């Protein structure tokens, strides 16, 4: 099994929206290399004809009637918002200038 490099950690940091610092990249690369080395043992069963289990319970979709029922007010829903305006979440710029 391949280990994990500093560059890979930087890439994974970008994918997971973490603005990692340089010293963190070194630190995490070293630790994750050890962890991945240890957990890679699961691949011992990779070739085996075993169905995967994603969940301990047999899951079925749960539906409810589509009825109006009490819910949070707009003020309650916005109560934790870092910024708000006109009963809406106010967020930094999402699209580019042009």
């Amino acid at each position: 099994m391949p280990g994990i490099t500093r560059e890979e950690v930087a890439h994974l940091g970008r994918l997971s929206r973490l603005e990692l610092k340089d010293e963190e990249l070194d630190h995490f690369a070293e630790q994750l290399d050890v962890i991945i080395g240890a957990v890679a043992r699961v691949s011992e069963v990779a070739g085996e004809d075993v169905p995967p289990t994603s969940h301990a319970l047999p899951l079925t979709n749960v539906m409810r009637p589509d009825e109006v029922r009490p819910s949070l007010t707009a003020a309650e829903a916005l109560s934790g918002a870092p910024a708000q305006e006109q009963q809406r979440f106010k967020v930094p710029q999402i699209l580019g200038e042009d």
Partner: protein
Amino acid sequence: MTDLTRLTAAETADVVATGKASAVEVAQAHLDRIGAVDEKVHAFLHVDTEGALDAARAVDERRAKGEKLGPLAGVPLALKDIFTTKGIPTTVGSKILDGWIPPYDATVTKRLKDAGIVILGKTNMDEFAMGSSTENSAYGPTGNPWDLTRIPGGSGGGSSAALASYQAPLAIGTDTGGSIRQPAAVTGTVGVKPTYGGVSRYGMVAFSSSLDQGGPCARTVLDAALLHEAIAGHDPLDSTSIDAPVPAVVEAARNGNVKGMRIGVVKEFGGEGYQAGVMQRFNESVELLRELGAEIVEISCPSFKLALPAYYLIAPSEASSNLARFDAMRYGLRVGDDGTKSAEEVTALTREAGFGDEVKRRIILGTYALSSGYYDAYYGSAQKVRTLISRDFEAAFGTVDVLVSPTTPTTAFPIGERVDDPMAMYLADLCTIPSNLAGNAAMSVPCGLAPEDGLPVGLQIIAPAMADDRLYRVGAAVEAAFTGRWGHPLLEEAPAL
């Protein structure tokens, strides 16, 4: 007057119901205890003095009117800071939710309130429940009441420490890989991970949704059962909640008996990495069960050796997805929004500032395990291991009624010893993880002190899914026999704070 903080929950409820003390007096005694010792222990992140006294007053008023009270009415409780509480801060031990006041109650919170249980406050925990020592809390570590320089277990170390230091007779924890049972073991208290789906996850901040399970923590098996019954049962707000009657756990706890039961000892739990004193107390527990009339059978579960690696792929994978919701847009921390940065940049800066090291490690690990080139080798294989572990349990429970093992390989380790060595930290959950992967029920009950360090050891009991009552039947028998042998509950040997 007896010290109200030394009573069990069942005794406390009786004292309140018979009017020997009011619920307000009980609550005040515990708030005073918190005031006296929690500066040293740091079990609580937030103490809700007013809310607790108001809830206690309401119980007293209902009693004065002659209303029938529930079996835990007026009993104080410490709630892990992972459950939302309307109007009361909920941090999950993370800076990213510092100052967040949820606008709604978790189902567990609501059921506690409905039962007349008095919530004293919110307890410390490893950030997002990721850890085995509570050292990963963004708000500082919690001390183990047996030795304040040692860890109280984790992630629910605040809840276990609150119980062991008599700050509350009841607590709630959550168990994704052992976060209820391991803290119980290292503090000499009782902790139960119910069958997956037994207790609602609505309003419980998600770490690894297919593994997370809330459950009761207490100083006695009966108290844990009473609390179990108060919080368990179907909840339409959680699609994975089991729609079936709650197993009769209180009745089982009142009728501890192992006569004629077949009890399996898991062969794979032991050997290298296990502390001698832990194995000694475990072996004595097995001998005790035999003396009490159980038939002891050695059971092999060969796939358990891959449980830890599988867990550290599955849990981080689910976490990396679950924690994507902390994007600095709708609630929680927002950092770097100076008008020049995009939403995406603000998200990345906020997550960098708001998450601690262990959370970042697991998000990166989960993202790695789910990436296209590695998915089959890592996440896919881990899911196959999960199937094999379930099969091992099925085969075992075809032969025996319950399985037993040490709850943890070692007693409480010193604060700081494993913080820089994630793999060493992960080993604390070696014996508890298989039950999360298979979704069955498990308990830790005190079984003595390790001779070499005088610290508590826990006996783990594992039962098939939906047979939670068996845990209480066996746990109560073990507790009664050991308490009789010791002449008092184990916790009375803990040093005064």
